[in-house]
């Protein structure tokens, strides 16, 4: 076996191992603990993050935020789609002037900041790492 073949097999094996390890935890959809929102259904969360209908049970306009590090896992768990499909979905709505995608935020720290500052903000975090000042409205199992 030459070096290239060994490398290929090694990388295939490690990819298989990574894929086989179960995800560390589920994904929690979170709001500000003082927002007055107790629970949201999966279809509420789909409506808000997919730009279909963005009204919160409080009557206010929901402000969804995407966090780059968890985005792929979140949409896989929510609608069983990968990021290219999500981009394709938004291309139709953006270029027909129907709706705008959630605000894109790179760091989890900034998502946290936004949710504690804004009563209408919705974010998502790894369910094993929910900060005390956030309230979980829906847990998505992966």
């Amino acid at each position, binding site marked *: 076996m030459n070096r290239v073949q060994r490398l290929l097999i090694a990388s295939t094996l490690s990819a298989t191992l990574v894929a086989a390890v179960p995800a560390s935890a589920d994904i929690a959809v979170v709001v500000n603990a003082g927002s007055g929102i107790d629970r949201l259904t999966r279809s509420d969360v789909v409506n808000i993050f997919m730009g279909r209908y963005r009204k919160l049970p409080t009557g206010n306009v929901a402000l969804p935020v995407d966090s780059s590090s968890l985005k792929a896992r979140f949409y896989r768990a929510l609608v069983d789609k990968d990021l290219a499909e999500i981009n*394709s979905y938004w291309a139709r709505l953006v270029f027909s002037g129907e709706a705008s995608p959630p605000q894109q935020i790179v760091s989890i720290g900034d998502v946290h900041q936004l949710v504690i500052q804004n009563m209408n903000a919705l974010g998502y975090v790894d369910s094993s790492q929910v900060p005390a000042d956030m309230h979980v409205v829906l847990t998505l199992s992966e």
Partner: protein
Amino acid sequence: MRRLLPVCLGLILSVTSVAAEARPLTDDGRLRFSGFGTLGLIHNDLDEADFTRDISQPKGAGKGWSARTDSLLGAQVGYRFTDQLDTVVQGISRYHDSGDFSPEVSWAFLRYRPDPGVQLRLGRLGWDVYQLSDSRYVGYAYPWVRPPVDHFGTLQLTYIDGVDVTFKQPVGSDLVLLKLYTGRSDGDVFIGKGLEAHFDVDKVYGGHVDYETGPWRFRLGYTEVESNIDFSGDAPDQLDAQFDQIRAFDPSFDLTANGVLGSSFGFDRLKLYSVGAVFDRGPVQLQAMWNRSKTSADGAVDSGFVSAGYRIERVTPYLVYSQVETTSDGEGGSEGDFKQRTYSVGARYDFTANMALKAQLDRVHVQRPGFLWRDIDSDWNGGWGSIFSLGLDFIF
């Protein structure tokens, strides 16, 4: 093509390095810029007729390869004044009725959203006459190289200057949507060799009801288009010359080519009825649509398609069947009518999160040649043709 290619390649290279989302240009995120485009190549095996994407294209793709039909570039700038008020301007450069790629403003509206369930838009708006019709140039948004030509190719307008209002109401976990719109518009339609119709649309109005439940989206739509039609080209010119000769003998003879063609086509008043259904869950994408457009001369255009796609990793293979038929007197096909059906097979490959490569084969059965084709041989009665297409779609 020679001028478009370097521009598109440059753009593609520059978009690979940026995120796929609309990029804020200001720190507060109020001003945003984004865009879309397609680099398309068509191979037509027919000697007898040139393939078009829609009736606004004066020239088609002849035998061999062509990049004119599907290639396009669009860009959008948006500015948010407040959470309720924003504006969007969108331009597009594609091969259209002026016979070149001259850019035009396809959207330019001011939007007011007092509530998540109400939206009011004022200005230039895409013609949302049936599902997907207002995003039919955004190749990245659909699996196909182009939306089924039999169904979308006969649309007369791309945008309206006017106003629309949308109401959304949740019903349990479902959503009901009502959209009403009215405005003015204009556009050119190429009907056949030496015959072109200019639509000066006084009034276009209509609406639709959408019902969204789980992965399903259903739509019922109705639209009326009232226009002054101006016919031009060799055919009306020759007709007018003959009428002038008659008038030389009989000054009371008052027929004009415009009048005669106008009453025989009946384009001055169109009524469009449409139904559509889309199913989108996980890797499965299904669509079915049907439309009947009626003219004031009792003619009709019936069209429809069904499409099925299934995503496997980064590749989405799909199958489409579409058909279109015109009837000039409500009695079934006659000499001047047009009828064809298309079987398509293709695949979309998402090789990055903002670019997709597509390949598609259309087997078109032209039963009676007509206005979706250009430069038709006068002795051609139709037959089978193969259109092979490659497309590179991107957003930035």
